[in-house]
């Protein structure tokens, strides 16, 4: 199989805004990371908090550019967001003033790949096609505030699929859902993946989720994020009806990932690393003297 996505020596640094009396410092979120994602692969990505998972996803989506190194999709460097990639966010990011149908069709409102603009009717038809795919037929006219968390995330997934990207980038999409809904959506995602053959990069902090969904699990190190290991998930008879989470093979793979991740999580905890926001700030980071004074003021 060919590499759909290639990360070549990718580093990303943020400039942390200077505090009172301190000069601006740089924060390295990702350090010379190399990773290939195969065409049509389901790759899950785990790592401790602050290991640059979301940063990596932003780079893949083209929402930010690497400080050094290259991000290639189909051999072409990523220069910005594109219709070949779609992002699903943890907090759904639906447009609350649009109905489910209008949310799904927003990516279709511009000119398509063939330079043709879809009519309103064609867009609506396409939206209901994809809402049906995610199990929400009949919910076209509902506004996001009328939907449950799981349903919102289904709409968000439909929105990402509607303009037919090759790659689906998912940033902890099920983290805010209850366990039952999450399990249900995991199954559906696998079904959709098999049906559509998309390449999926799925970020999670759940080891179970990573092993259950991924063909391969990429483990990132504590900050600065490097690729620590890639685990090939080999579970026989995955597509069966059996509860694969309780099979010995699953438990074994899960333990493998857990061991890899465990040291890194402790490292990250000791260093007090927290989530880095998209603008490069890490507001929960243990405060230095200056920042503490500032927040007290």
């Amino acid at each position: 199989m060919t590499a759909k996505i290639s990360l070549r020596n990718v580093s990303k640094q943020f400039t942390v805004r200077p505090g009172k009396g301190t000069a601006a410092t740089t924060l390295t979120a990702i350090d010379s990371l190399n990773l290939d994602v195969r065409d049509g692969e389901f790759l899950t990505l785990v790592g401790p908090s602050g290991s640059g998972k979301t940063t990596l996803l932003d780079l893949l989506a083209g929402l930010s550019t690497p400080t050094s190194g290259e991000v290639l999709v189909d051999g072409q460097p990523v220069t910005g967001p594109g219709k070949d990639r779609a992002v699903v966010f943890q907090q759904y990011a639906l447009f609350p003033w649009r109905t489910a149908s209008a949310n799904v069709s927003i990516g279709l409102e511009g000119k398509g790949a063939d330079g043709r603009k879809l009519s309103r009717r064609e867009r609506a038809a396409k939206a209901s096609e994809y809402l049906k795919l995610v199990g929400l037929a009949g919910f076209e006219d509902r506004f996001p505030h009328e939907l449950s968390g799981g349903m919102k995330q289904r709409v968000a997934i439909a929105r990402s699929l509607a303009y037919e990207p090759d790659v689906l980038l998912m940033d902890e999409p099920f983290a805010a859902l209850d366990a039952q809904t999450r399990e249900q959506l995991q199954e559906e995602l696998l079904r959709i993946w098999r049906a559509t053959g998309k390449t999926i990069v799925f970020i999670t902090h759940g080891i179970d989720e990573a092993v259950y969904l991924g063909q391969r699990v990429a483990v990132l190190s504590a900050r600065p994020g490097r690729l620590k290991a890639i685990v090939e998930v080999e579970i026989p008879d995955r597509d069966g009806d059996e509860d694969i989470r309780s099979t010995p093979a699953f438990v074994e793979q899960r333990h493998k990932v857990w061991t890899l991740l465990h040291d890194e999580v402790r490292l990250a905890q000791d260093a007090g690393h927290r989530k880095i926001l998209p603008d490069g700030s890490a507001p929960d980071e243990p405060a230095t003297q200056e920042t503490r004074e500032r927040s007290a003021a």
Partner: protein
Amino acid sequence: MSATLTKTARALGTDAAEAAAAVGQGTPPPVTAKPATAALASVADAFKGAASRAGSWLWKATGILGFLALWEFGPLHLAPPSTRVFLPPLHEVLQAWGRLFESGSIQGHLAASLSRSVLGFGIAVAAGVSLGLLIAWYGRLNSVLNPLLELFRNTAALALLPVFTLLLGIGEESKVTIVAYAAFFPVLLNTIAGVKTVDPLLIRAAKSLGLNSFRLFQKVILPSAVPTIFTGIRMAGTASILVLIAAEMVGAKAGLGYLIINAQSSFLIPDMYAGILTVSLLGLGVNFLLVALERHFSRWRTAVGA
């Protein structure tokens, strides 16, 4: 797989469209099409609903009715006769209002006030929204204009009335200008706030969908800011009437403010109260209209059951 999906979805779509068209064409309302018993039941239900609505309406009106009763009977029975001259009971005020209405003078004053406030308010909304969008979009413009705007905003509009009168005379221009000035700031500040408080996640999502800056503005920032902008517009509506009445009291030959102050100085006290009553009703009406408008544009923001 995808092809079959598309087919079924299209079939579904056309079915729905046809059904909608059929409903649209059926001119008689669906209620009459029901069997007679069902229609009777629904009429009974509607009557019950109306009765309970009327009950709650009556309950809500208690405060107002109590106040009106106090206004009517207080001056007659509680106050000394000398006060009655300055505080005529309600029926005298209503009689005065009737007389003013018959002579057409209240309509004239109302029209004068309305045309001034609508014109000033319109200018303020147009200028406030467009400048607000510009300022919010261009950060540098904001840092230049913000201190200046703070200065103007915190200068009471009425303090500038003499300036407007000197520059623009005592005619319509000065009054329209001061109304526009007073209504401008709520619109401007709420527009800026509305644009600035757009959820950054939505902007990220829109960018990941490949929207360019213009489309981002048109499809995400503007719709997301609309409810906040309308809050500003509602505040501006209240401000415009407030300032207009005061301006008309100072120097005008028509308008509700002029009616009130002129009646007072001519010692036509019931006429004065008739003017005040009209101002209250006008304010209520304007607010009602703007609240309805605001609610219409923020429907998506109200949560279920709220």
